[in-house]
Structures are given as structure tokens and as C-alpha cells.
């Protein structure tokens, strides 16, 4: 019978990815001064599990790095080596390498072998750099996963200057007994009796010798007498631990036999299995070494994880996003059908058709519940996005020499999957900006009387039908003078009297940057305008609050989902258009006197002392309207990106939730239209792209207003 191991690969890949993410999370949160034992254990366990799985499933390239990781982590968790920032850096690097290797297997992305080797050497070097500790002890520990005992290694080296050979010999001598045994055609050959593995020795040699030019071989024979030091361990049927300790030579012999057997088959039994039928046998096993057992119990108790984390047994299933989208689409259709049914039955006499009408009401309620439930499938916690940042913040802060404390709030807040993926880039930009331009250098902060460590927070919360995501730093804040100065330089229309909110909006202008120096992190001037555009395309808006010396908050407001929208339906001529409710401020019937035409370039309307550009919807879409004069119809005041405009329509029809149908995938992109929906009567209605509408009208209106 053969068992195809490949069927477990996907589980292994997913599992490894989760373990790596977990490892990174733990590494980022670890307290260098006093690392939590349980956290160290968890990191060790992650490395250990990956190594075990990789070995079993034949994905051997993952085992190299995990082996080194495990070795180092074992030293650290046993308290034989202090945890330093260097270690954490190396571990994080190792995590990245493992991820790269994993992706190589899973997604067939390229794997840079040089970085793999470099990382491995770095870890090995760290394992050997054990400070004042006797290296013999360290070497012993580092081989704990291979059979203990001294081995004889023969190291064939290329020709090298005597001074280098001397320093290499000195290094190697710390691992055990070193003899310069012979010279093969002028090339030095060293013999080392050591408890270290070939890899460990190779790691040391690597500093002076090209690995390709040297050859390290192990003499298979155990060095006589050496095994004695390790004896006292080993337990085979005929003897118990006490006996072993008393007769080291015999034990060593047994050990060797056992080793040979184990090497051959990879398993062993502590007693013949006939004992399972013999009732007294287990008792013997049980009382083997009570002291040792007690010792171990206390040791295990110390280390035993007391984490109350729930069992990781998964109660979720993986479903492809297409299936979910299809489901959402079908529910969308159902909502439309239900709306149709509701509209048709509306005209029926409630007295005559009471039961039918009750059923329709019931259907309406059920449909709404179903729709909500289905939409929630697509919802993902913001943690999906937030969890990417701790590492980035750490790396960036390190690069810039800044101290940053990173906090996330509301990571459990849910957002549509489609949105969540598209919010990552803009958020990354904002976080980079905050660290690069916002938070000051420690010295600057201290001089300003602030804590040297800056605080950067990412928060998410629901506000009405929107989700609000905020990036807040306690840095220097935006400089009004610099922004205005820069704006004047760039020829933007500004005045000193502009309110702060409008000044801050200037940083969204394309190519705008106030950074004195362009760094490789940010300040290249491609940024805020892209952020703004991306957020805008998601139907959201960006808002800035800032106080000089106290920091900046950038607030992004997004609709919860792209699939459903609260809309206001308006009528122009025979057509019904939908305006997303989020843009609508108010609607009013203007007085004739409030509407003014300016030098043939368009009309403005005065609303509460403010002149707003007047956009006639029928002119934009070329429709014959019912009313030509704004004072006969209705104007709807819209706001987008902090700018307002008045939209002239014939009539307001009502407010309703609409299921958004993508126009591009069903027809093609139409300027001024962001999508379509099907109305209750089965008719199609277009959704107006309000932000584009206002943007295009604004230019016109600005020119008009400034020239007058």
C-alpha cells in the first residue's frame, strides 16, 4: 500500500504559513529584557513543528533554517544565551526566508538561495557567539537533536596562509580536541574530536574558507571512552537506569548497539511488547526511575504551557471567493424579485388579500435577513490588514532611527473582503508617512518635552453605515506655513485666510510634498493624491486632523460594502437616477433670486450665504427635463472631498437600498456613472458618480468664481 503524501501538502502549507505568522507576531511583541518563557516556547514550538512537518513531507529545504532556529531558540529558552535585538532580527529574517521558501513550493515563486545560505550562516554564527559561556557546553546543547556523543571530524582545507590557518585552528579548538593530522599535497587537514555537528564546524570555517573548497567528513567510529561521559543514559529491556549509571562501559556498549538499530529503523521500544499482556510489566516501567521522573515533572511543570488558548481545532471551512460572490449575486437577484413582488402587491386591497400581504411582509423580512447573513460571509476582521503593520513599523522605525510604539484598536471590526484588500495599499502609505514625516527623532522629541518613543495607532470602528479607519501619530503635526508655502510655489490657488481643514486637503494635490529631503521611504510626491484617489474609488473619503506639535490623524471613511448602497432616487425627465446617500447633505427648492449665471460659464446658487456651482443633471446626460428652471424643480446639495455642489433635478422619488451592479463588467465604463441597479419595477437605474461630477464641475466653478 502506498500513501500519497502530496495530499497533505496543502494542509502543511497552510499550517506553516499560520505558524510563521504566529512566530512573527510573537517575535515582534517579545520583551527583550525579560522574555516571557511561554512566548519563547511558542516560538520554539513553531520552528519545531515546521521542521517536523517539512521533514515528514519531504520539503527538506525548509528544515535547514528551522533546524538552526530551533538550536538557537533552545539555547535561549533554556537560559543559556540571552535574547538580544540581534537575535530577534535574525529570527525575523529567518521567518522571511522560510516564507519565501514556502511560497517557492506553494506558488512556485523564485527562491533566492543566496539569502537562504546567508541567513543560515547568520543563525549559526549567533549560536556560536555565546559570549563567556564555555563553548563545550553550548556545542553539546546545539546537538541535542542528534545523537549525543563525541565524533571525529576530518576537515580537509584548501591551501591558506599560516596566519589564517592559525586563527581557524584556534576557533575550532574551542569545540573540542584539535589535531593537525597530516598534509595532503600541501593542503592542511585537521582532525577534530567534538560533540558539535558538521554543520556547526562548517559554520565556523565559513568565515575564512569558501565552503566549496573544504570537505568535512565524519569518522563513523565512536571515539572509545568518549561515550562514557554520555553514558548513564539509555534504557533497554534488561536493565533499568540505576544499573546503567553503575556500569557505564556496558551502557556505552548497549547504547552503540541501540544507536545502530535505531539508525536502521528509526524507532524503538522500551520493553518487549509481550509485556502488554503481562500485567506486572507496566508497573516495572512505572517505577523505573522515580527521582528522575519527579525531577522531570517539576521541570515540565515549569515549562508546561499554561496558555488557556482554545483548542485550535478548526470550526471553519475554506470556500472559494467565487462561490461566495455567486451566492451574493443570487441573493441580490432575490432582493430585486422581492422588491418587485412588494411593489405589485402594494396595489392590492389589504382587506381582500390580507393573507397574501402578510406573506409578502414575511418574505421581505426574510430576504433582508438572508441578505445580511450572506453579506457577512464576505466580511473579514480588520486584523487581516492590521496584522501586517507591526513588522513594517518595526523595520521602518529601525531604519530611520526612531522609536515607535505601535497600537491597534478595533482589529475585530469587520469589513467587506473586496474593500479590505484594496485598503492595504493606501493604509501602508499613510503608516509610512506617519513614521517618516510625522514622528520625530528621539532627540527631537525629548527636546520638545515628549516621550522619546512616538506612538502610532491604527484604529477601526463602525460609524453608522460606514467604517472609519484612522492612522494617528503623536509626531510634529502638519506645518500650515510649509504647506501654504509649497502650494504657492506649485501655483495652487491659496490664501492665508484658508481654514486649517482646507489647508490640509492641499497635501492631496498631485505631486505635493513638503519633505525637505526625499527619502527612499516616502516623500517622492507620489502618495497622498494616490491614496485619496484609491479611497475615493472605494466610495470613501479621507479627512485630516492635525495640530502642530501634537500629531496628525488621517481618517478614512468607507462604506461597509460595495455591493449594497443606500441611495436617494431622483427623477430627471423620464429617467430615475440614484445618488449615493453618503454624498447628499440636503435638498431644497431654490428661490429664483439665488440662482446666478456668471459670464456665460455656468450658474451658481447661493445657499446659506455660500455660492455653490450648480450642475444640471439633464445637461450632463442630455435628457429633456420636465423643468428648465431650478426654482421649479429641486436642487440636491452634494458634498465630496470637502467640496460642495448643487445638483438640479426634476423631483425626489425616495430613499432605498440598492444592489449595485457593476456597469463595467456588464457593459463598459461610462463617465459620470459608477454603476447600475435594478429597481422594484424591474427597470434599470444608473448610479451617479458624485465625486467625479463634483470634481469636474469644481474646476469650472473655481475659474468662474475667482475671475469674478
Amino acid at each position, binding site marked *: *500500500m*502506498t*500513501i500519497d*503524501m502530496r*495530499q*497533505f501538502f496543502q*494542509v502543511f502549507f497552510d*499550517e506553516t504559513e499560520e505558524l510563521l505568522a504566529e512566530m512573527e507576531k510573537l517575535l515582534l511583541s517579545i520583551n527583550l529584557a525579560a522574555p516571557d518563557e511561554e512566548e519563547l516556547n*511558542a516560538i*520554539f*514550538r513553531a520552528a*519545531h*513543528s515546521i521542521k*517536523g*512537518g517539512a*521533514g*515528514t*513531507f519531504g520539503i527538506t529545504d525548509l528544515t535547514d533554517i528551522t533546524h538552526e532556529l530551533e538550536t538557537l531558540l533552545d539555547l535561549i529558552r533554556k537560559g543559556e544565551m540571552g535574547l538580544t535585538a540581534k537575535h530577534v532580527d535574525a529570527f525575523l529574517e529567518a521567518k522571511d526566508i522560510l516564507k519565501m521558501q514556502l511560497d517557492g513550493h506553494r506558488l512556485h515563486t523564485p527562491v533566492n538561495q543566496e539569502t537562504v545560505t546567508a541567513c543560515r550562516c547568520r543563525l549559526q554564527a549567533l549560536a556560536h557567539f555565546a559570549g563567556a559561556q564555555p563553548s563545550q557546553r553550548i556545542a553539546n546543547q546545539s546537538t*541535542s*537533536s*542528534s*545523537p*549525543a556523543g563525541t565524533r571525529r571530524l576530518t576537515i580537509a582545507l584548501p591551501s591558506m596562509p599560516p596566519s589564517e590557518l592559525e586563527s581557524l585552528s584556534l576557533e575550532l579548538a574551542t569545540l573540542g580536541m584539535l589535531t593537525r593530522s597530516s598534509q595532503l599535497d600541501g593542503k592542511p587537514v585537521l582532525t577534530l574530536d567534538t560533540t558539535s555537528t558538521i554543520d556547526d564546524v562548517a559554520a565556523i570555517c565559513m568565515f575564512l574558507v569558501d565552503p566549496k573548497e573544504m570537505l568535512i567528513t565524519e569518522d563513523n567510529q565512536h571515539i572509545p571512552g568518549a561515550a562514557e561521559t*554520555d553514558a548513564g*543514559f*539509555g*534504557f533497554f529491556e534488561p536493565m533499568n*537506569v540505576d544499573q546503567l549509571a553503575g556500569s557505564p562501559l556496558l551502557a556505552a556498549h548497549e547504547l552503540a548497539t541501540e544507536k545502530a538499530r*535505531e539508525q536502521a*529503523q*528509526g*524507532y*524503538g*521500544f*522500551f*520493553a518487549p*511488547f509481550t*509485556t*502488554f499482556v503481562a*500485567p506486572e510489566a*507496566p*508497573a516495572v*516501567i*512505572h517505577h*523505573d*526511575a522515580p527521582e*528522575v*521522573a519527579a525531577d*522531570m*515533572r517539576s521541570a*515540565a511543570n515549569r*515549562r*508546561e*504551557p*499554561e*496558555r488557556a*488558548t482554545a*483548542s*485550535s*481545532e478548526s470550526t471553519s471551512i475554506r470556500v472559494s471567493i467565487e462561490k461566495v460572490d455567486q451566492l451574493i449575486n443570487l441573493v441580490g437577484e432575490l432582493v430585486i424579485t422581492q422588491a418587485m413582488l412588494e411593489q405589485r402587491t402594494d396595489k392590492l386591497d389589504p382587506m381582500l388579500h390580507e393573507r397574501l400581504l402578510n406573506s409578502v411582509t414575511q418574505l421581505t423580512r426574510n430576504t433582508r435577513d438572508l441578505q445580511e447573513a450572506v453579506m457577512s460571509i464576505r466580511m473579514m476582521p480588520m486584523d487581516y490588514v492590521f496584522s501586517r503593520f507591526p513588522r513594517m513599523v518595526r523595520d521602518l522605525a529601525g531604519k530611520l532611527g526612531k522609536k515607535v510604539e505601535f497600537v491597534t484598536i478595533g482589529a475585530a471590526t469587520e469589513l467587506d473582503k473586496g474593500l479590505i484588500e484594496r485598503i492595504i495599499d493606501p493604509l501602508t502609505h499613510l503608516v509610512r508617512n506617519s513614521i517618516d514625516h510625522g514622528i520625530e527623532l528621539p532627540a527631537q522629541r525629548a527636546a520638545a518635552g515628549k516621550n522619546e518613543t512616538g506612538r502610532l495607532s491604527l484604529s477601526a470602528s463602525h460609524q453608522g453605515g460606514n467604517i472609519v479607519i484612522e492612522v494617528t501619530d503623536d509626531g510634529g503635526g502638519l506645518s500650515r506655513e510649509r504647506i501654504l508655502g509649497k502650494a504657492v510655489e506649485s501655483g495652487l490657488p491659496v490664501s492665508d485666510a484658508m481654514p486649517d481643514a482646507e489647508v490640509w486637503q492641499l497635501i492631496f494635490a498631485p505631486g505635493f510634498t513638503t519633505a525637505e529631503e526625499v527619502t527612499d521611504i516616502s516623500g517622492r510626491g507620489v502618495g497622498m493624491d494616490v491614496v485619496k484617489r484609491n479611497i475615493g474609488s472605494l466610495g470613501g473619503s479621507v479627512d485630516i486632523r492635525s495640530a502642530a506639535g501634537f500629531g496628525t490623524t488621517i481618517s478614512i471613511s468607507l462604506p461597509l460594502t460595495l455591493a449594497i448602497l443606500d441611495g436617494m432616487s431622483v427623477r430627471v425627465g423620464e429617467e430615475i437616477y440614484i445618488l449615493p446617500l453618503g454624498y447628499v447633505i440636503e435638498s431644497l427648492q431654490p428661490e429664483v433670486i439665488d440662482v446666478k449665471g456668471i459670464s456665460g460659464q455656468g450658474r451658481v446658487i447661493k445657499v446659506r450665504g455660500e455660492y455653490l456651482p450648480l450642475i444640471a443633471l439633464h445637461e450632463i446626460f442630455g435628457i429633456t427635463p420636465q423643468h428648465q428652471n431650478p426654482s421649479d424643480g429641486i436642487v440636491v446639495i452634494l458634498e465630496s472631498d470637502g467640496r460642495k455642489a448643487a445638483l438640479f433635478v426634476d423631483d425626489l422619488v425616495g430613499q432605498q437600498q440598492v444592489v449595485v451592479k457593476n456597469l463595467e463588467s456588464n457593459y463598459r465604463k461610462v463617465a459620470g456613472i459608477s454603476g447600475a441597479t435594478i429597481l422594484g419595477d424591474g427597470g434599470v437605474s444608473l448610479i451617479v458618480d458624485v465625486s467625479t461630477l463634483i470634481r469636474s464641475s469644481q474646476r469650472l466653478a473655481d475659474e468662474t468664481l475667482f475671475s469674478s
Partner: protein
Amino acid sequence: MTKTVLAVDDSASLRQMVAFSLRAAGYLVTEAVDGQDGLEKARTQIFDLVLTDQNMPRLDGLALIRALRALSTYQKVPILMLTTESSDEMKLKGKAAGANGWLVKPFDPQRLIEVVKKVIG
């Protein structure tokens, strides 16, 4: 009667591999995600064999073996450790805790079935 095996491992892939292989060989396998889970499952049913990983959260393999041996129902049930650590020290610890044998990871399914057959037939 079909023999029952309890497979304890926090790594889902390894656990599934073990379970799949043994099921294919005709055993009835129950999976447990860590030592604690394994102990709870062992309390509700007496298995013919327990296979356990060593490094696990909540309750590690050695602690599980000790806990099982403390139960009157698990005095005679064979327990094997599946471990990456093949050092003598680990074996001694395993024996002291009450394990009956070990199997070094990585192992292939055939090897596992072979060993399990040796123990419970």
C-alpha cells in the same frame, strides 16, 4: 475487532498524515490537537494505542504520558512517542514518564504502520 488509536499532535498536517495512514491500514483513529485534548479524549474512551508528539501547547507529550499512566484505565495501554528528538536524554525522559517506545520523525507512513502493527497487531 477494529483496534483504536489515539493520535495526538498539534500539527494538523502530521496528525492528518498519521490518521490517514493508520485508517488506510484498517485502524480506527481519533485525533487530538494537543496533550490536553488527548487527555480529555482518553478519559472518555480506552484506546488500544496512543501515539503522541512531544512538543505541544497546553500539555506536552511527556506530561500527557504521565497523566495517562496516572489513570487506572491506562496502566497497560501502549504509548509511543513520535519525536524529532532522538537523543538518549529524550528517550530516558520518555521511558521515565511511562512511554513504551518511540518513533523518530520524520518517518514515512509505511514505517508508522509497520511499528503500530508490531505493537497492537
